[in-house]
């Protein structure tokens, strides 16, 4: 389906695909992003993808709306040949613990034990639909229906860096500490934004995420490694962790 385009004042264009959260819709967004980067049209400043939309910023003194809109339209109808193959990341999580403040309440709500919540949460393969809100915050689709849980009535003023949480039908890997109203299940020692690494970000939209439960001892061990500049998440296909 051809997307619809809307101008945002004089210097951006919002490209909208089908209005639903689905891998095939998000794939179209990411294919457009890749094609746009390959084409690198004059005046393009930055393109930002989300679930079903892409926002393209341009310099209106270097190009104009009709030109940029035409470029976006023609690139949207192209193939997905430019799209990069997503990576599957396995992320270690210490469930419960000091950061897993809502694990017990989530279990109670769904009539499950905490162990069953962990088993269900680690049993799925999640798709990264969006990295946004704050640096490295990765929003995931694919949460098992048995864990669909509404947001907290009152958001917390701050959730710790690396918090693993759920809300509605979505999952979330938090980057740096921020306010959030999502249900906290645990915490990863991994940092999805590490400014001192050569590649400060590693999770990208279109990637997949799985979770592996670790205990307090392993969490602390991995935290030390992360502090020393290594990566705690594993690229499942290559088996590589570290850098």
């Amino acid at each position, binding site marked *: 389906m051809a997307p619809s385009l809307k101008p945002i004042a*004089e210097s951006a264009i919002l490209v909208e695909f089908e209005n639903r959260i689905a891998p095939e819709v998000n794939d179209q967004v990411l294919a457009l992003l890749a094609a746009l980067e390959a084409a690198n049209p004059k005046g393009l400043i930055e393109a930002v993808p989300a679930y079903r939309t*892409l*926002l393209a910023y341009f310099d209106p003194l270097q190009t104009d709306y009709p030109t940029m809109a035409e470029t976006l339209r023609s690139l949207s109808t192209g193939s997905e040949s430019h799209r990069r193959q997503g990576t599957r990341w396995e992320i270690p999580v210490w469930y419960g613990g000091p950061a897993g403040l809502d694990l017990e309440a989530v279990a109670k709500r769904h009539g499950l034990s905490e162990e069953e919540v962990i088993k269900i949460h680690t049993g799925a393969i999640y798709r990264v639909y969006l990295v*946004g*809100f704050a640096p490295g915050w990765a929003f995931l689709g694919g949460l098992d229906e048995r864990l669909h849980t509404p947001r907290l009535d009152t958001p917390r003023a701050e959730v710790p860096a690396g918090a693993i949480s759920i809300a509605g039908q979505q999952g979330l890997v938090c980057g*740096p500490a921020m306010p959030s109203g999502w249900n906290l299940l645990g915490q990863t020692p991994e940092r999805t934004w590490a*400014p001192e690494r050569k590649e400060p970000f590693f999770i990208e939209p279109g990637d997949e995420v799985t979770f592996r439960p670790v205990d307090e001892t392993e969490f602390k061990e991995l935290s030390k490694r992360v502090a020393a500049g290594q990566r705690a998440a594993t690229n499942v296909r290559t088996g590589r962790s570290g850098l």
Partner: protein
Amino acid sequence: MTEAPGLKIHKITPLCQLQDLGRSGYQRFGVSRSGAMDPYSLRLANILAGNPQGTACLEFALAGAVFEVTARRLHFAFVGDFPVLINEEPFPNNASYTLARGERLEICATDGKRGTHGYLAVLGGFAVEPELRSCATHLRSGIGGRASRGATLITNHDEAPLAVERQLPETLVPRPAKTIRAVPGPQTEYFSADETRKLFHTTWRIAASSDRMGYRLDGAQIQAQDAGSMISEPVSPGSIQVPASGQPIVLMPDCGTVGGYPKIATVISTDRGRMAQLRPGSEFEIERINAAQAVELLRSEYESLAAFQINGCIN
């Protein structure tokens, strides 16, 4: 003992931050654009100081700061409606000046009546490593540091090149606006004609709970149909989003990269800085224009900045 050349901080607040024209290319990873609240004033300060327009400056928001010069020669410009004292003597703002080691520079707090944001530029710039390709501070992400008392803002020059001391022409002095221009959209379908009319026919006030992320507007409530049903999408500074409470919020440079509220209109690029200069309680109106008019306004602003920069070099 040799001291690092620059501006030694005697007094400062977290409202004083290093900013440039913002960070692009990292919103897809959740990193805000940030950058100057009033890019026009930042550009003017840099031109006055003799810098490229986008050089990082110290941004002031209502609060002041006190510095001691530790460089042998420092040439600076300050643009903004803040009283400036040099060695405790009043000095015109919107001007550039050369100082010597040991001299004291004070930017005093302002009541914000004629502008809430000011920019201090030093010739040659501050010696700061860009992070993710920009020197813009984003405190919530921990990007850029908090300047603290006793620290020194190091300048690239110990002895700045000799430069002309100048005053900004009155016609170029930034002023807070009584009219802010906006282009409708992108979510026009969420608002009835009556609700849209409200946006353009209300006397708005800046709410007290406004900051670098967003300016909240008091004056009327706007109802969005079906608010809360939107799938989160990327948002741009300048967007006027309308949450379920009905209180519009104009997104500012530190806004999150995505949002799920419908957006009734977008403040045009040239007027985002003019809006940033309004203090809480200030009244203003929103005028509807189209994108083509917005491009012409942007072009004319850039042309007047370029003309001032060229004339400045001839001086």
